[in-house]
């Protein structure tokens, strides 16, 4: 149980909520919140949506007001990076200077994968931070006409959606056979593909990128099928890697993230939360790492409480994950954890109308609910998932809909 100074490394969603929770729970000692970006904690979901469209100012991105942040009485250090950790010695290194801690929250998140051979090439972007988003927003405002999005995941889909809304010509390239295929499976992936095409995206699936062309600035892309397209803006959304390099040699277990126990504890007095944390969620087999907004909030809260608890008081972190993604005029929500080859059944609405709810099931178990403009049904389904409803029970519940 932690009694004195807590350091939180990572000043985004999980880190902010960890700090807020410590104060809410009555922790009165020093809390240091260290972030490597120069900005006060801000919200990332709008970055690929309203902020990218130029419809949201910087100050509207803030996670909290200046007053509320001041009330937390944090030792807030922005533009600083943790560079090393010694768990046994209870010290960490910030920009090379060693300091001690009693409790530590690791919330360093992830960073974007990049396409090989594109480093330093103007017009090629990834999207993770406010500065990333501002650069793409400015490129769109400066008259980019032909955007290629590589990767049809959430970031790619939302960037495509925003750019289409600005009248930009958009090509989206996905190596898999369907967008979101690895998450949603082929059938629902095809529905996602239909939504993109319906809104005018030139979606090319099952094809990779062979070479990005241009001297100093991107001018085109050659695809693996031989097609060469002219491009003046390239956004790469091909996944992320956890920021754990600074923890090498620290004594923590690192394996696609910081490996924790079921309560988010990585070592005595050390917890991890958000995109960087990998833990055994008792609802599912194996270790889980979740890159969604709601998980960062909840895990930040849970991990902070864990620091203040004894081993006996600690409880497992056992959420049913969910996320939303806003694309065009559609709200996509997924609750649960589908396997791409689960049975899929549309239980409300119609996929052709792009307004529906669908259930995923496997071996008599209800595994996930997907909705497009069906928030009520998705959230009711999330309750069923939390209650451990069977496939039959879930279908019976849904038979009351529509």
């Amino acid at each position, binding site marked *: 149980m932690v009694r004195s100074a807590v350091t939180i490394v990572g000043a985004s969603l999980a880190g902010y909520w960890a700090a807020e929770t410590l104060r809410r729970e009555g922790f009165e000692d020093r809390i240091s919140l260290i972030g490597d970006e120069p900005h006060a904690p801000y919200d990332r*979901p709008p970055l690929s949506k309203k902020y990218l469209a130029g419809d949201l100012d910087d100050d509207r991105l803030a996670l909290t007001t200046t007053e509320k942040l001041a009330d937390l009485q944090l030792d807030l250090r922005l533009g600083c990076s943790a560079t090393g950790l010694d768990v046994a010695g209870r010290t960490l290194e910030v920009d090379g200077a060693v300091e001690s801690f009693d409790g530590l929250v690791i919330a360093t998140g992830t960073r974007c994968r990049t396409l090989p051979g594109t480093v330093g090439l103007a017009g090629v972007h990834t999207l993770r931070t406010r500065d990333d988003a501002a650069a793409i927003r400015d490129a769109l405002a400066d008259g980019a006409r032909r955007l290629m999005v590589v990767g049809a995941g959430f970031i790619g889909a939302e960037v495509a959606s925003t750019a289409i809304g600005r009248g930009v010509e958009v090509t989206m390239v996905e190596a898999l056979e369907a967008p979101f295929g690895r998450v949603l499976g082929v059938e629902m992936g095809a529905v996602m593909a239909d939504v993109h095409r319906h809104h005018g995206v030139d979606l090319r699936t099952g094809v990779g990128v062979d070479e990005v062309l241009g001297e100093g600035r991107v001018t085109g892309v050659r695809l693996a099928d031989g097609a060469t397209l002219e491009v003046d803006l390239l956004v790469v959304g091909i996944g992320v890697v956890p920021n754990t390099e600074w923890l090498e040699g620290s004594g923590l277990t690192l394996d696609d993230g910081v490996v924790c126990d079921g309560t988010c504890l990585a070592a005595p007095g050390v917890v991890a939360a958000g995109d960087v944390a990998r833990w055994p969620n008792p609802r599912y087999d194996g270790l889980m790492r979740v890159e969604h907004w*709601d998980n960062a909030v*909840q895990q930040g809260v849970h991990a902070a409480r864990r620091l203040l608890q004894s081993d006996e008081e600690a409880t497992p972190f056992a959420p049913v994950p*969910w996320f939303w993604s806003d694309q065009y005029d559609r709200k996509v929500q997924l609750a649960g954890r589908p396997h791409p080859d689960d049975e899929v059944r549309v239980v409300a609405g119609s996929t052709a109308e792009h307004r529906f709810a669908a259930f995923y099931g496997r071996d008599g178990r209800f595994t996930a609910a997907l909705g497009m403009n069906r*928030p*009520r049904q998705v*959230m009711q389904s999330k309750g069923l998932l939390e209650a451990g409803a069977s496939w039959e029970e879930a279908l019976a519940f849904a038979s009351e809909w529509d």
Partner: protein
Amino acid sequence: MRVVVDFDLCESNAICMQIAPDVFEVRDDDFLYILEENPGEDRRAVVEQAVQRCPKQAISLED
């Protein structure tokens, strides 16, 4: 305790409905309705969770 929703921000993600179904309801028209504008003190912790987990930060509490 009074529940206030900024409907310009609300995008009907419905997480609030799942956390506090006696206070919030997203109906089939995809709009959020406040069922109980002045919930009892015993609901404070739950409503605060809805405030915290609203993806649009559209909910606030006035004492």
